[in-house]
């Protein structure tokens, strides 16, 4: 399987073309407003490119069986958590929504590994910004999708969790997963890393 993306958007960038193979990581860099998030949204199928198209293998992503969501996990600027639900409920319900079965033990151990032990039963409203981000990361880890699209995943995370996330990214690449990431911080990751500079 390989993901080939070709696109051109007149406003932000054009004639952009790249391929991502299993086990590769693509870091998208560029100044603010250079279109990093737009590129990620196009890759995930949320936005439509002005020109060009995104392909999953040989197929355009629009015609992938079950939609793009069946192959990718997307972590955007917002955490997509419900304030009135606990962290555990948020994660469990998201997994069920994606069509997976959430085992309670897995959910709890993942939350635990992200340093949220003792906070599972608290409504997300009472969590700090960084803790909310960790719950969103737990969801991403449990979704078990081949492609991760991460928009500024390090925002609001402390050093320990950055380390956990780095390990998770390396493990994902080791399992022949694919990752597209935007970040302002330079975090060194062992693996097949490529950089795309916009703007």
């Amino acid at each position, binding site marked *: 399987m390989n993901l080939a993306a070709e696109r051109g958007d007149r406003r932000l960038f054009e004639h952009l073309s790249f391929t991502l193979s299993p086990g590769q990581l693509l870091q998208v860099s560029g100044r603010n407003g250079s279109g990093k998030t737009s590129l990620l949204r196009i890759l995930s199928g*949320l936005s*439509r490119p002005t020109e060009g198209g995104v392909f999953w293998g040989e197929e355009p992503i629009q015609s992938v069986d*079950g*939609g793009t969501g*069946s192959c990718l996990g997307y972590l*955007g600027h917002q955490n*997509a958590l419900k304030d009135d639900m606990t962290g555990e409920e948020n994660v469990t*319900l998201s997994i069920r*929504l994606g069509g997976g079965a959430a085992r309670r033990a897995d959910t709890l151990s993942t939350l635990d590994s992200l340093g949220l032990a003792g906070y599972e039963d608290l409504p997300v409203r009472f969590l700090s910004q960084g803790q909310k981000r960790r719950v969103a990361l737990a969801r991403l880890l449990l979704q078990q999708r081949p492609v991760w699209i991460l928009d500024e995943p390090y925002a609001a995370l402390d050093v320990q969790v950055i380390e956990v996330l780095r390990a998770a990214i390396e493990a994902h690449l080791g399992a022949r997963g694919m990752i597209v990431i935007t970040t302002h911080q330079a975090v060194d990751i062992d693996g097949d890393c490529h950089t795309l500079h916009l703007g």
Partner: protein
Amino acid sequence: MFGTLMALLRRDLVLALRRPQDALTVVGFFVVVVSLFPLGVGPDPEFLRSLAPGVLWVAALLATMLSLERLFSDDYRDGSLEQLLLVPEPLGLLVLTKTVAHWLITGLPLVLISPLLALQLNLRPDEIVLFMLALLLGTPVLSLIGAVGAALTLGLRGGGVLIALLILPLYVPPLILGAGAVDAVMHGASAQAHLSLLGALMVFALFGTPWATAAALRIMLD
């Protein structure tokens, strides 16, 4: 697929239970608006009786309108809507599920409280039963059509007012048919024609609007 839809329905209902003021505001609005009419037009029972079908329906319509803005805006604000668009199921079905949840939270309570208000406006028991039946057929139409408007005005400033302008004209058919059904019974005629048309309208909305709503959501989130 069934598991996904049930998870979504459960999530929306749990959220509504944890924040009951949203649903209660709608019912409260319905009760207050209907209760204001006798104070405004005078307590003559016969006059109130002739006004009742129209007043009750317009109040139900406005109450539903009040709740529409929140249908997608909460999910939009916290990013859940993006994740919902990425769920590997047809978006139309997900939207339909959310609309069903919306009806259970706002439409059904209106149906359940309506006999009390109908009594207050001097309707007879058989007319009250028929009014409830008409509301039962009509309120899902209000939610379904309203969802299109809610999706189209997502993320716009002053979206609430815009929804009203967009959707109220589309609420005319259920209003005419619903109020007409009660009117017919009050004048000794059969309400069958009105109810059949209202039922047909509901089926039509059930199959047509979720896809329109889904398309609108995709455009607004592009």
